[in-house]
């Protein structure tokens, strides 16, 4: 039994109590990432502190030296456990292989062996330095291997700190709290040890590092209890990023500032027909078939790979990687397979030609023959042919929307769009009364061409399906800071619910379909510019359709809605 304990001994007992408690809590958290290494770390700390208590309270100098030697088991366990904890906790557990662990424990094992066999050599010597005023035997340690062990310990400490420090910038408060507590837990004893090794701090002539474990124990307890160390774990984050890099459908190639390939996913290797291992370390220009050098401005290009029959096209994007000083560190090349998209575009071009040219030509021929005859049949043929031509034009509009010919970047003034649409409608439907309520703004508001298709079809639909004797179509345009809203009201019979349902579902069947292409064009055109469409329809008051499109829509990063001009 000990005599009344001194202050250092009391502090060490506190460190043991707190460290053991945290160790038990960590043990209960298994198999959460980092739990087991943290247990070993806390076992190492507690062992170290316990041995120092026995050393300080030993009855003889020989006993003091013995416990100092045995303490080295804990001393060397702590840094190894810390590195393993940092790797596992941050999701880098794939680096914890048997081989790596075996390599990690070589220096600690040698150190412990040298400490236990210490009198037989002077690589790591432990000797009595003197006797303190209270009778405590003071110990001095040194030797070549002591320096090696200290350096190794600090190196592992830094190695483990790096991934934890990165979490300090996490967007999750709980992860920032965890990492801060963990850093306090590891840096406090390490700083104490550094100060001791440089003879700046010494308590009762002995290493005060284990006393600092009281602080680290509290920090680990705080991380576990206050910051849910084992309930909110960052381990999946790093793995998820790696998983996404490895499994995205795009090929991804990372090059450094010297155009050397430093990383590449399997998709990228497959596209370029190279092995990842061969490509890594190679010059980018030898792997990527780019004649003009690397695109450094975030530009895009299309890359074609393969033979004439098996050729596939890739949209090649180059994104610069910069550090916090905006200095370029390298580039990421992404290869997006656009082969199917380009084939689709080709098919649309053919359809466009057929709808634009061939149908109109054939319809003109039919109309020509119909005009040579007279009577009701001829009029029906002429009328139906006109409708075929109209249908072809709508089909062409649709193709152009999909093709991007009606480019979202192509814009027109809202006023002109409305005036032209209403003028065309008055010509086509002379018996319908049209009224326009233009936007009450001083600035010139531009809208994408897609909205022209939307407004034209809305007005045409409102007038064409209005069957009363006194028919009206009113168009209201409103502009706010965020959106452009065009509302078309008619006093017709209203849109059939079934048509709206089909439109809402987005698909047609042979038994469930709309009456034409007009409403589809309205829907597709609005969707093209990220707009909203709203229908209000009943048989007594007709139909109100409201198309709302954002002013800040940025197709390909180009804003179209803010080209205001000075008011006059």
């Amino acid at each position, binding site marked *: 039994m*000990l005599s009344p304990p001194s202050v250092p001994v009391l502090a060490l007992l506190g460190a*043991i109590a707190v460290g053991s408690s945290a160790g*038990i809590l960590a043990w*209960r958290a298994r198999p959460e990432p980092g739990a087991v290494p943290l247990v070993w770390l806390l076992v190492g700390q507690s062992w170290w502190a*316990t041995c120092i208590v*026995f050393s300080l309270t030993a009855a003889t100098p020989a006993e003091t030296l013995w416990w100092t030697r045995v303490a080295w088991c804990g001393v060397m366990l702590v840094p190894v456990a810390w590195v393993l904890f940092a790797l596992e906790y941050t999701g880098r557990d794939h680096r914890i292989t048997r081989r790596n662990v075996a390599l990690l424990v070589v220096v600690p094992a040698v150190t412990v062996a040298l400490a236990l066999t210490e009198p037989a050599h002077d690589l790591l010597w432990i000797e009595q330095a003197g006797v303190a005023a209270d009778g405590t035997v003071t110990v001095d340690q040194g030797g070549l291997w002591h320096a090696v062990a200290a350096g190794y310990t600090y190196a592992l400490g830094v190695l483990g700190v790096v991934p934890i420090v990165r979490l300090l910038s996490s967007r999750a408060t709980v992860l920032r709290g965890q990492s801060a507590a963990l850093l306090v837990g590891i840096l406090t004893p390490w700083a104490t040890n550094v100060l001791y090794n440089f003879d700046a701090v010494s308590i009762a002539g002995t290493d005060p590092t284990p006393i600092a474990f009281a602080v680290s124990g509290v920090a680990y307890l705080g991380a576990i209890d206050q910051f849910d160390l084992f309930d909110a774990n960052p381990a999946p984050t790093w793995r998820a990023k790696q998983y996404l890099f490895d499994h995205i459908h795009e090929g991804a190639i990372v090059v450094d500032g010297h155009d050397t390939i430093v990383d590449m996913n399997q998709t990228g290797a497959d596209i370029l027909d190279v092995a990842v291992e061969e490509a890594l370390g190679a010059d980018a220009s030898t792997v990527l078939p780019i004649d003009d050098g690397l695109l450094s401005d975030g530009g895009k290009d299309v890359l074609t790979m393969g033979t004439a029959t098996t050729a596939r096209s890739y949209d090649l994007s180059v994104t610069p990687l910069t550090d916090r000083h905006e200095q370029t560190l390298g580039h990421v090349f992404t290869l997006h397979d656009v082969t199917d998209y380009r084939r689709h575009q080709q098919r649309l071009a053919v359809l466009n030609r057929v709808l634009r040219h061939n149908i109109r030509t054939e319809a003109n021929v039919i109309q020509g023959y119909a005009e040579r005859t007279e009577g009701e049949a001829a009029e029906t043929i002429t009328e139906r042919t006109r409708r075929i031509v109209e249908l072809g034009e709508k089909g062409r509009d649709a193709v152009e929307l999909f093709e991007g010919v009606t480019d979202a970047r192509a814009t027109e003034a809202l006023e002109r769009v409305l005036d032209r649409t209403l003028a065309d409608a008055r010509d086509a439907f002379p018996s319908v009364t049209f009224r326009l309520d233009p936007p009450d703004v001083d600035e010139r508001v531009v809208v994408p061409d897609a909205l022209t298709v939307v407004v034209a079809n809305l007005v045409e639909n409102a007038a064409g399906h209005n069957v009363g004797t006194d028919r009206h179509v009113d168009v209201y345009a409103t502009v706010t800071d965020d959106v452009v809203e065009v509302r078309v009201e008619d006093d017709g019979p209203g849109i059939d619910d079934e048509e709206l349902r089909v439109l809402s579902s987005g698909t047609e069947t042979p038994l469930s379909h709309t009456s034409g292409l007009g409403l589809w064009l309205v829907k597709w055109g609005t969707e093209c510019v990220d707009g909203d469409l709203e229908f209000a329809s009943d048989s007594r008051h007709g139909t109100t359709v409201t198309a709302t499109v954002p002013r800040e829509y940025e197709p390909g990063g180009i804003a179209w809605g803010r080209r205001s001009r000075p008011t006059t």
Partner: protein
Amino acid sequence: MASKTTDASATTDETAPWYADVLASIVDAGRRLTTVLTHSSMYLVCIAVAEVATVHAALSIGPTPAPVVVGLVAYAVYAGDRIADAERDERTCPERSAFVARHRTLLSITSAGAYGVAIALSVTGGPLAVGITLVPGAFWILYASAWFPTLSARCKRLKRVFVVNSTLVATAWALAVVGLPIAFANAAVTPLVVVVFTYFLVDTFVNTEIPNVRDVEADAQDGVYTLPVVLGVQRTRRVLYGIDVLLVALVGTATLTGLLSVSVGVAILVGLGYALVLAWFVGRTTALGRLSIACEAKHLVVFGVLWGLTAIGV
């Protein structure tokens, strides 16, 4: 009938004694305290402390931190056990399971803290005290968890072996109860120590087997061979009688030969008499939970008798 009921109610309200509410509050508080003591295993802490105090008296050891350390370890191990077995207890002890689920965080932190403080206190007793303090926890880890898969698998197989399971539990606790005072006092291992250790070993074994009567069906299904599973309840009772009688013989002999002081010998013999009475209820009562607690409380009886005898100068 209706008016009668109304009258009775009114009469009850008017004549309710002034202390009724106070009594009700005291009863309620007592129930709550009993629930906490029972479900959190705090009562086992009291029993463990009484056991270590008895050892101090039996071995004539002065005050040491051993009772505190053993009490803390008992709380930590049993509270940890309650947390680990919470799901299993839903079937056999639903009230305890609900209590643990409700106070899981508190129990987890306080039990970990208790073991941490126990270890730190044991450091003041030297390496042997630290080692003995770690025995119940280390044994529980091996016995109840799969931290070391191979070793744990063997330990779990040991748990199924007839008598071995209870013997291992009894050894761990007897070692802590008897060993820690010796380690703290730096006392020598004498024949008296052997007698006291044997008594606590065998007695803890008995106390471990009595709760097994309640779990006989579940243990049989799980392939755990306890005394009641292998011998049946009737024969288990007879075996317990036999063990208690052997302990009476051991303690009586030690007392008669002067190895054990009279006061300690008498106190333990009274406790063994109490245990024999309780053994009669094995298989004859359905309140097996209370029977288990009553058996474990035998050490409180021993300690109480010992304290009384000491007080009157025996």
